[in-house]
């Protein structure tokens, strides 16, 4: 007998958003997703007819009972076995963990694949050669292989002694050659010390030679289908990294693998490869390319991603002193990784520097050419893990800090990815306290994405709505009804219910501000300690390259106002967008670039932040907006002084 009249409630967690709440017994999963502002699609209004709201139940599947006939109509057998259900037909009867796949998400995600364009001449490892072989006669009885090698030598001056034919094509080659009247295209991949003939195609296909470059981010995947003949991008695509249900940060993913053993290792590998294969297929469709026309693939990503993608046991790298398994670049036959491409394609993973400084950081250093410069530059690659590099051609040092996914909208109450309807910019008039926001594609707001999550604390600070410690100034509730006390303490309304596409006000909570504070403090600490270790200050920096998924959407002054990075005059900041993606493309299309990344990996010196005795005190100071010592932020100090937020001594002025 139940004594309490309170209805029973169960916790439901939506991934990859990381949002959760308790819901009453019998609540429809679709309604729960709406209450949490999850971007789950539904065209039929939840009648079970459109089949758009497909979700994967990762935990608690048994509680949903048997699959319903209308679900069977919309779900394939594989999907049903994989735990897929329709959210509108599923009722909550137990705690659930729900994964919202890419196909079920509302709105087009902004790709955020744009990056620095570095002029690189295409000189790929894969080349296609169209040959016209002489027909065999009784006077010319060379083997088919010799006939081909001799022709390659004659037509293209390729040395037969360095050429090897991939064994598994020898069987089909004679037939193909004869059917094509001895006119074939030979694809040659340059291995270390030799050339490999990886495929022979009938006729002249030399104009069609493609490769695929991919930046494997902990949160996002960005892929580029490249024309290897021209070095140009043929198509781009992006996805959320499907590994997030196995852990939001890389360390929890490694833990999942450690605890789950081989099976978990295979699963996490399959998840990311599944996401990459989806992008490959999408790009191929867009550019009208056959998957078999992809002859090489190139990947960058942090060291954890390298291990999980290549199926290297990651346990020991997660323990101090965090040694990586493989530092050098890795060449693997693509089928070994289950990648969709030509069966004889090679997959290359760019080298890493250390356990926490990976190929993504190498790619940024490569794309910005900081190792070649006289001037001192700092690279900051903003992400769940923020990597920082500092120096010039004499010495480049690099470190990494765990900044967390807050600026990617994770663990933020109304945080979402940068997709249609996401609030991407916010400004507040400091005197009238009037708020203006802009959404992606000007659609009614559904949530807040990363770039706005930088604007919000900056604008709140400038308007005196939060103090230098990041606390809401409760007294200001008398001035604006946007500031109010909610269920979880003070919160500020960014968009009201009636203007939003959701059924509630979109707010930023005190807890959200704390998450953003911790994230930006980690980034700042990484930069500050690196400068100090090198005996420099921010004044020594000639240029700061800001890379990361934000692309060019963030407001650099607002990011500076909250103290995400050291304060420099605005013109010294340069946004390079997804520089890791740029690096992946460069290493795909150029042999010189691939040699260059190997060089970076041995030249750049890794600096372990955790051993820095100042880490804790510096992190504490960096938790302030913008920083505890305003003398390090003179521009921001002057701005706040002008706005009347602080006095001459730098003390925050609270309203009377």
């Amino acid at each position: 007998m139940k004594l309490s009249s309170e209805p029973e409630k169960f916790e439901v967690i939506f991934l990859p958003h990381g949002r959760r709440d308790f819901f009453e017994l019998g609540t429809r999963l679709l309604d729960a997703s709406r209450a949490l502002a999850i971007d789950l699609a539904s065209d039929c209004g939840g009648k079970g007819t459109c089949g758009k709201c497909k979700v994967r139940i990762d935990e608690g599947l048994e509680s949903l009972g048997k699959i319903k006939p209308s679900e069977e109509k919309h779900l394939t057998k594989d999907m049903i076995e994989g735990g897929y259900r329709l959210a509108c037909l599923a009722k909550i009867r137990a705690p659930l963990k729900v994964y919202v796949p890419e196909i079920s998400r509302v709105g087009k995600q902004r790709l955020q694949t744009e990056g620095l364009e570095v002029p690189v001449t295409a000189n790929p490892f894969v080349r296609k050669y169209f040959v016209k072989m002489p027909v065999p006669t009784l006077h010319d009885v060379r083997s088919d292989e010799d006939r081909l090698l001799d022709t390659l030598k004659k037509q293209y001056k390729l040395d037969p002694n360095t050429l090897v034919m991939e064994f598994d094509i020898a069987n089909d080659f004679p037939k193909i050659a004869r059917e094509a009247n001895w006119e074939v295209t030979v694809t040659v991949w340059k291995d270390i010390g030799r050339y490999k003939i990886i495929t022979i195609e009938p006729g002249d296909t030399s104009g069609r030679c493609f490769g695929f470059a991919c930046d494997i981010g902990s949160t996002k995947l960005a892929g580029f289908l490249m024309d290897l003949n021209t070095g140009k991008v043929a198509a781009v695509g992006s996805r959320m990294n499907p590994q997030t249900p196995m852990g939001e940060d890389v360390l929890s993913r490694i833990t999942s693998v450690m605890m789950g053993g081989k099976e978990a290792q295979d699963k996490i590998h399959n998840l990311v490869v599944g996401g990459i294969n989806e992008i490959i297929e999408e790009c191929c469709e867009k550019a009208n390319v056959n998957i078999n026309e992809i002859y090489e693939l190139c990947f960058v990503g942090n060291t954890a991603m390298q291990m999980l993608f290549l199926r290297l046991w990651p346990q020991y790298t997660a323990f101090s002193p965090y040694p990586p398994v493989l530092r050098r670049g890795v060449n693997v036959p693509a089928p070994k990784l289950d990648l969709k491409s030509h069966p004889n394609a090679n997959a290359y993973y760019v080298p890493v520097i250390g356990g926490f400084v990976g190929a993504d950081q190498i790619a940024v250093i490569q794309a910005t050419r900081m190792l070649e410069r006289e001037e001192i530059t700092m690279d900051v690659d903003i992400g769940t893990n923020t990597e920082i590099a500092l120096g010039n051609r004499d010495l480049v040092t690099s470190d990494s800090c765990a900044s967390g996914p807050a600026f990617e909208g994770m663990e933020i109450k109304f945080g979402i990815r940068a997709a249609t309807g996401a609030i991407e910019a916010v400004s507040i008039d400091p005197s009238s306290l009037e708020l203006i926001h802009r959404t992606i594609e000007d659609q009614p707001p559904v949530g807040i994405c990363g770039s706005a999550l930088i604007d919000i604390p900056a604008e709140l600070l400038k308007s005196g709505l939060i103090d230098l410690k990041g606390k809401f100034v409760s007294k200001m509730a008398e001035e604006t009804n946007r500031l109010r006390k909610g269920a979880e303490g003070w919160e500020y309304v960014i968009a009201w219910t009636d203007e939003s596409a959701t059924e509630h006000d979109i707010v930023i909570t005190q807890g959200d501000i704390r998450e953003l504070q911790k994230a930006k403090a980690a980034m700042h600490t990484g930069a500050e300690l690196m400068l100090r270790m090198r005996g420099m200050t921010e004044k020594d920096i000639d240029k700061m390259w800001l890379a990361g998924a934000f692309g060019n959407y963030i407001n650099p002054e607002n990011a500076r106002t909250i103290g995400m990075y050291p304060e420099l005059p605005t013109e010294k900041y340069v946004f390079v967008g997804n520089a890791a993606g740029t690096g992946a493309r460069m290493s795909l299309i150029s042999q010189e670039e691939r040699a260059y990344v190997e060089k970076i990996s041995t030249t750049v010196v890794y600096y372990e932040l955790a051993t820095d005795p100042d880490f804790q005190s510096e992190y504490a100071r960096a938790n302030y907006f913008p920083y505890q010592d305003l003398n390090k932020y003179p521009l921001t100090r002057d701005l706040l002084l002008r706005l009347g937020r602080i006095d001459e001594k730098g003390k925050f002025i609270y309203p009377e």
Partner: protein
Amino acid sequence: MSEKEEILKKFVEASAGSDEEKVEEALNEAKELGDAQLIAQLKLIRGVDIGDEEMCAEAAKEAVEAGMAPYKAIIDGLAKGMEIVGGKYECKEYFLPEVLMSADAMYSGLNYLLPLIPKDEKGTKGKIIMGVVEGDVHDIGKNIVKAMLTATGYELVDLGRDVPTDDFIESAKKEGAQVIAMSTLMTPTLMSMKTVEDKLKTTGMKDKVRTIIGGGSVTDEWRAKIGSDAYGKDAMEAVDKVKMLIDQIMVAVKKMKETEEEEK
């Protein structure tokens, strides 16, 4: 209530409620009263509350000069201040940076006062072995808990970070500690906590010492899974639970001794 007690009460309440005016008032009243010990005590509390290292160091000296016992200066001054900070952290008034700075301020006072305490007055309440487990070097969380525990008067043996599992056990044996407190921020290193727990069981130490775990990646489910005795979700809760564990083990040890004697 004496005038001195009234001023102290007013000051503590005002500090806890962040009522700057009242804090100022109470300080002035103490000055008017001219009680040097009281002034030093208020400054110790204030210094910790606002995270002012210099103020704490200065006040510690003044307290001793005014004839206050060093142990009393720690408990009634620095620890009181830390208690206020803990309360403000709990009600979200304070955040990480304030707590870290308060901890630094407290240590600046402690560094002066601790060497002045006679040996026989030390370590009467209980002893705790603490550290960040093997494989992890992130120690901010542990340091906050350490500061809070120091303020309660327990004796602490801090093994630092990336502590080999055997060291926790050896040191607990050697020091005769009641509690082992382990922390980790990272998830893979959760396994190191399990290793310590398993070893405590196989070496027969489990009855003699209690364990508490905490840190960014630690949950109560993990505690239950590895059989640790307590989980502290934050520094404040950790302190309460450590107190509870020490009381438990003291009672248990006493009982064990009594039965042993009875058997004799």
